[in-house]
């Protein structure tokens, strides 16, 4: 393609106005050349020849997947021959179409009289609507962003995407599998807000009756935060803290604080909730470092109890002291841990959603066939505005079986 991916100065045609008779002050008069002054100076129009329109999955089955737009309309619907198939009951068979309009940077979205509507930037499309660059298109639970880029940038971002995917898979591989049987059951959801997040979680049996659980939240997200998360996670997984009794939360926190001072770790700190359940003594020893409370819900789901100790975050101050606490655990109780990204949520209607709203969700009944962490994720997702969460969303549910 000629001129592909280059800015073409379409306005550079020599429409000359008047010629300045006296040389401009910066002119070398002897050279004989003079500054030509336009009668009506105007900015050159930048034509984006060869630029590529894409719809990028922001939320849905394959985040990051890109659908390029060509001359033909891109069809979205529940079944083939749609180009983007969204296998959701609330999506119509033929739901909407997206088309490039020559000479415009935005796309045109046409709703094909879908039952539940097509949304552009949160507004239901009546007939047709423009989807500007960076705008969000929502069909059912699928959210797509409109990208408009030069081809070499598309190629570069695809390479970066692949690298980030690999890094993301590595971080995911460090997270434990959910436990569906045994004396302790676990279930979790971790959705990074960027390709790489700063949240992580873990658990392991310390011996036949004690079980440790933790949740980490490194300040910020992206590659830097994720690299820090990986080093902390590996230390905890390998129990690589010399001289520390892992059944004593205050010792774990103090040693991590000595090891991960922010001055020596790129200015990054992290918050941590760490607890050890003892089945014989029916109790849970726990400590928070700059983290909000974990919540213990009784088997009858009557109330949730905040488990919090007031300590600084890990890495903020050398020699900080860390206090732990203990709580009795009725067999069958559930422990809920989450990052602040699970409740600092911007909602669809602009209402504030906060910790108290999330706590209200904890006491609601299970959803048949859906894990408890996923139930909470879906509930929050339904309230949050479309698009990725502002922060990593992490929920870890641990059930201490009778």
């Amino acid at each position, binding site marked *: 393609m000629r001129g592909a991916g280059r800015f073409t100065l379409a306005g550079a045609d020599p429409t000359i106005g008047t010629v300045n008779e006296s040389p401009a002050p910066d002119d070398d008069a002897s050279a004989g050349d003079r500054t030509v002054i336009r009668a009506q100076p105007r900015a050159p129009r930048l034509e984006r020849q060869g630029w590529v329109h894409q719809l990028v999955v922001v939320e849905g089955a394959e985040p990051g997947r890109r659908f390029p737009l060509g001359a033909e309309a891109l069809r979205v619907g529940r079944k083939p021959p749609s180009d983007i198939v969204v296998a959701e009951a609330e999506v119509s068979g033929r739901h909407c179409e997206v088309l490039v309009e020559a000479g415009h940077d935005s796309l045109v979205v046409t709703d094909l009289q879908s039952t539940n509507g097509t949304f552009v930037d949160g507004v239901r499309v009546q007939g047709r609507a423009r989807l500007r660059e960076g705008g969000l298109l929502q069909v059912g639970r699928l959210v797509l962003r409109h990208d408009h880029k030069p081809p070499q940038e598309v190629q570069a971002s695809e390479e970066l995407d692949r690298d980030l995917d690999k890094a993301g898979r590595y971080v995911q591989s460090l997270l434990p599998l959910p436990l569906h049987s045994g004396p302790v059951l676990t279930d979790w959801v971790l959705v990074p807000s960027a390709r790489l997040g700063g949240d992580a979680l873990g658990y392991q049996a310390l011996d036949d009756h004690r079980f440790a659980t933790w949740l980490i*939240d490194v*300040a*910020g*997200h992206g590659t830097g935060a994720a690299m820090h998360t990986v080093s902390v996670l590996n230390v905890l997984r390998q129990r690589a803290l010399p001289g520390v009794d892992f059944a004593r939360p205050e010792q774990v926190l103090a040693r991590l604080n000595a090891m991960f001072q*922010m*001055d020596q770790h790129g*200015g*990054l*700190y992290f*918050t941590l909730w760490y607890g050890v359940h003892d089945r014989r003594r029916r109790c849970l020893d726990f400590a928070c470092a*700059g*983290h*909000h409370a974990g919540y213990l819900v009784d088997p009858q789901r009557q109330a949730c109890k905040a488990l*919090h100790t*007031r*300590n*600084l*975050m890990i890495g*903020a*101050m050398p020699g*900080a002291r860390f206090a732990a606490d203990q709580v009795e655990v009725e067999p069958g109780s559930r422990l809920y841990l989450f990052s*602040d990204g699970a409740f*600092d949520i911007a909602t669809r209607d602009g209402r504030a959603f906060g910790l108290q709203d999330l706590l209200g969700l904890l006491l609601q009944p299970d959803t048949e066939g859906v894990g408890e962490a996923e139930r909470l994720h879906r509930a929050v997702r339904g309230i949050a505005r479309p698009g990725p969460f*502002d*922060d990593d969303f992490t929920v870890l549910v641990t059930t201490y079986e009778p």
Partner: protein
Amino acid sequence: MELTVEDLGHGCCLRLAGRLDSPGVDVVETRFLAAANQGRGAVLVDLSSVSFVSSMGIRMLIAAAKTLHARNLRLVVFGARPLVRELFDTVALDQILPLAADESEALQMAARP
């Protein structure tokens, strides 16, 4: 996110307004840290017009406090709204930097030896 720097003679007062979250910190961090480290006196940080503080916001405050502390100077935060105050309490921020209710209390705290 906005930052206004007010000279207090020997120290300064940094007034923040808006959401001190990741994007907000990106906007003001360089200027904030530069202003905090410029003077030879204590630094007051006014949060009365800040509606939200994220972990990145806390990180910026701690970073400034630590640099000042290394020079034997103090950073005092004041005017935090109830939700922000609650967050500071959860993360025990008072263990690392003084938190004052208002500007006059902040001035007193800054003047203490």
